[in-house]
């Protein structure tokens, strides 16, 4: 194992972290800031990916597809908010769980109804194809660098939106007391529809961007959902900074675990055994990390000043 490889893996870990953040960004907004448990977040992610793949296939342009993913996910989000979510804000979390669980079923099956059962094709745009040489000599895929950039922009934009704008304040105010913010003259209903649509659009964007690197298929949102929740909770709910750092931590832990655990174990047992046990341990690793963090800091790494 060379230093260059270790560094590359570290970069991979950071990159995975940013990707996780991109996937979690919409959820941070909806869950962390609006206080709504939205299990259907993964479905919106899927909607974005499918919209992008379909439109990219029609038009031949990934970029138009990307815009379509934003539009489709935002529209889906707005409809969902208007029809379902709106009635759930002042219910307890359990009703939100059930309703959005129901939405997952409907979205998954609905998507299959529309698009069929086979994975769709979605490729990286020519502009971002291939790899570039990094200082140190290793090659690194351009597209992954683009994801890092996109993640950083989203993180920064969200941070500004939530903590620096009046819109952000109103959203947070609405989370703690919807009635009161309304009584002060803020149209919180419309505001929440907009925010939900925005969160959905972010999910859709992530679905499209990550979908081009992974696979666009029904059910693609579910693993994302769990990971995104893990990320947000580790970071501390409601904190954009926490979500970003949580994502990086998960990304690095996961990558380094996958990379190093088998190697370490190989010092003690046969390589095949080490591979299996190490692989098993690596898949549990982020959950172990999460449990440890929550056991020590019960409100995440960066407990936002929230009730």
């Amino acid at each position, binding site marked *: 194992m060379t230093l260059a490889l270790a560094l*590359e893996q570290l970069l991979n870990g950071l990159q995975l972290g940013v990707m996780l953040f991109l996937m979690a960004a919409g959820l941070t907004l909806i869950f962390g800031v609006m206080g709504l448990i939205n299990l259907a977040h993964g479905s919106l992610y899927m909607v974005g990916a499918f919209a992008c793949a379909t439109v990219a296939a029609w038009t031949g342009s990934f970029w138009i597809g990307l815009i379509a993913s934003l539009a489709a996910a935002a529209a889906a989000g707005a409809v969902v908010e208007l029809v379902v979510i709106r009635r759930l804000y002042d219910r307890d979390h359990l009703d939100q769980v059930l309703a959005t669980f129901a939405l997952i079923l409907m979205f998954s099956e609905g998507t299959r109804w529309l698009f069929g059962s086979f994975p769709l094709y979605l490729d990286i745009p020519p502009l971002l194809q291939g790899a570039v040489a990094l200082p140190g000599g290793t090659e690194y895929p351009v597209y992954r660098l683009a994801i890092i950039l996109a993640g950083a922009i989203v993180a920064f934009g969200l941070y500004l939106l939530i903590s620096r704008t009046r819109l952000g304040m109103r959203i947070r105010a609405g989370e703690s007391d919807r009635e009161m913010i309304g009584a002060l003259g803020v149209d919180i209903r419309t505001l929440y529809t907009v925010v939900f649509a925005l969160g959905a659009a972010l999910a859709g964007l992530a679905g499209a961007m990550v979908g081009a690197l992974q696979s666009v298929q029904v059910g693609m949102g579910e693993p994302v959902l769990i990971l995104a929740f893990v990320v947000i909770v580790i970071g501390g709910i409601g904190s954009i900074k926490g979500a970003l750092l949580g994502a990086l931590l998960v990304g690095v832990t996961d990558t380094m675990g996958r990379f190093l655990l088998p190697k370490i174990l190989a010092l003690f047992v046969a390589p095949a055994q080490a591979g299996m046990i190490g692989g098993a341990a690596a898949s549990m690793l982020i959950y172990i990390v999460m449990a440890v963090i929550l056991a020590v800091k019960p409100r995440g790494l960066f407990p936002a000043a929230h009730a």
Partner: protein
Amino acid sequence: EPLKIGMITTLSGGGAGLGIDTRDGFMLAIKNAGNKDITVVTEDDAQKPELAVQIADKMIQSDKVDILTGIVWSNLLMAVAPSAVAQGKFYVSTNAAPAALAGANCNKLYFNAAYQNDNLHEAMGEYANKGYKKMFILAPNYPAGKDSLTGFKRYYKGQLAAEVYTQVGQTDYAAEIAQMRASGADGIFVFLPGGMGIAFMKQFAQSGVKIPVMGPGFSFSQDVLPAIGDAAVGAKASGQWAPDFDNAASKKFLADFQKEYNRLPSIYAVQAYDAAQLIVAAASKASVKNADAFGAELKKADIQSPRGKFKFNTNQHPIQDIYLTEVVKQNGVITNKTVEKIFADHGDAYAKDCKI
């Protein structure tokens, strides 16, 4: 004499593509047979073992089916098949073929019309002996993944650069690809079914790493190829069938399937098609109520398989030829082209333990 078949397969959720090909291939053969006595009930297992068991119970207890078939996944098969045969029903597998049912725990009522799980991996191990000195092998960390690498190693004689097990359902392979680059391997064998394979191939193509990739046939089957796109071109795989097979049965199957469903069939469709052909053939000779006679007829495997030669081993798993295929782009369609035969009349390593 009436014969009732219960098909349990995955028709909803992420893995539905495979189940739909299975069902369609199967029903094509049933339709072609035109035997009014044969009825098929189909239900969706949603890829959940518990649901599969519930459906199996219903089919056995209420629908009173004689034969069960259709399950795609090993873990669902393990939930259904052992208890179905324990209740005296036939099970004819259209895909899943765990080692656990091929050796000492084989059963007279259990047939596998597809392969034994290890077969395609063994073939790639054999193929890799020609020209690859140092292989990097990778599979998900679950029984089928372990069987896969075990099968590969059973035939591969060269050196292993690394043997890596990834998380089931993993979608990002940057860390593994970096290791591949650094490992000095001259060939890569991956077993990553479904979405995992799509993600891996796309990311591998982006990485700039230029090591030949190979895998078992279903990693590059028609259900995933369109989604991988050009990134798959050039990959080598092993398979018992490819769309370009030059025999009458294959051509007829291909034409019929495309006419009926307006798409290219995958290997799952072929396997299910053959399973249905096997049942139809046996039903014309014996009554399913007479298990011994029906089983004997099934075992004769008197069918024209698109795969060409096909017969059953002592453990009622196939003996068949296995080919090397390559992913190519022909007229804008990405598909598999047959390159050469790797194994002729290949059985499996477990048959010797089976005492039927």
